[in-house]
């Protein structure tokens, strides 16, 4: 018969609300990187839960595989893809959010009330006997006897996934990469000669040369293409109007 000691109960009541709040925050924060960090925290919490529930091996695997490998992969892809408009929280399908929240409340209520009412017909047993020779040894005993066939199938799946990722990520050029000469010709024979001398650097002609201030063109208008596309997508571009020079006094007074 399983009795849960007080330290585990304290651990549960501290960590469980934090995990639920972190996963809620995952939905609510705007930036995907913050979502990833909150998810990493939820996964670490789950690893602690596993270890507390006599699943030592799974707890360690959770930390190594999920918070180590999988979250690193997520952050790597986030870095590769960069920030774009899909981070915004505006709903594109009207009425989707209320429907989703209503359905979620219904589904969650159903699950919780189901767990509250159902019984297994026996009390919680605990893993003291099953973990007799040690958690890793007992798991290995099961894995290499009862579950040896699924284990082999899973290894085939891993190899297939690795191959699939390589095939998907492999990129073959359909047209040759333009040479410097072709790029120069295209620049001068294009629609306008405006960018023939290269795009302006951020902050040119303005009174501020930070990377988030657009350059000013000779007629005083801002040149948004002088700013990196990532800064534009993040909405970090400043108005350059505030950095324009004021009235320039160009009257000539004759000195005596």
């Amino acid at each position: 018969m399983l009795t849960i000691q007080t330290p585990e109960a304290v651990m549960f009541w501290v960590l469980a609300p934090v995990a639920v709040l972190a996963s809620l925050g995952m939905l609510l924060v705007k930036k995907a990187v913050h979502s990833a960090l909150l998810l990493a925290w939820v996964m670490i919490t789950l690893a602690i839960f596993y270890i507390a529930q006599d699943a030592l091996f799974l707890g360690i695997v959770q930390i190594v595989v999920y918070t180590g490998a999988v979250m690193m992969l997520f952050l790597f892809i986030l870095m590769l893809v960069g920030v774009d408009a899909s981070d915004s929280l505006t709903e594109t399908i009207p009425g989707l959010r209320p429907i989703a929240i209503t359905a979620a409340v219904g589904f969650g209520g159903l699950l919780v009330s189901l767990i509250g009412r159902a019984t297994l017909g026996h009390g919680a047993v605990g893993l003291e006997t099953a973990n007799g020779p040690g958690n890793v040894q007992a798991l290995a005993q099961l894995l290499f006897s009862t579950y040896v066939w699924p284990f082999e199938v899973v290894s085939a799946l891993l190899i297939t996934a690795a191959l699939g990722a390589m095939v998907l990520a492999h990129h073959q050029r359909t047209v040759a990469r333009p040479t410097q000469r072709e790029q120069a010709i295209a620049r001068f024979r294009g629609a306008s000669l405006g960018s023939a001398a290269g795009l302006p650097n951020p902050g040119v002609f303005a009174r501020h040369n930070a990377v988030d201030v657009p350059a000013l063109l000779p007629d005083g208008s801002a040149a948004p293409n002088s700013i990196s596309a990532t800064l534009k997508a993040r909405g970090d571009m400043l108005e350059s109007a505030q950095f324009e020079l004021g009235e320039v006094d160009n009257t000539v007074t004759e000195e005596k």
Partner: protein
Amino acid sequence: MNPYNYLYVASLLFTIGAVGVVVRRNAIVVFMCVELMLNAANLTLVTFARINGTLDGQVVAFFTMVVAACEVVVGLAIIVTIYRSRRSASVDDASLLKR
């Protein structure tokens, strides 16, 4: 406290993950919500293994982790491929079949 409390947490996490899949637009965040749902299912498996006193649930949870790792690798490769051709990671932009 009894071990069933872990099941309540798992069902809440699963529900939150499902909402995230529906509501968010960034394909990577949607994918992370799928991972959250898988993790919630794993917590359920580990808890039931403890309640029933056998290790079969833990073995299945281990298999789930392996399959989830495969899924992440292939899914992220698909996202990178889509991003390369459309310059967008939004799930709403990949709608060629609709038109």
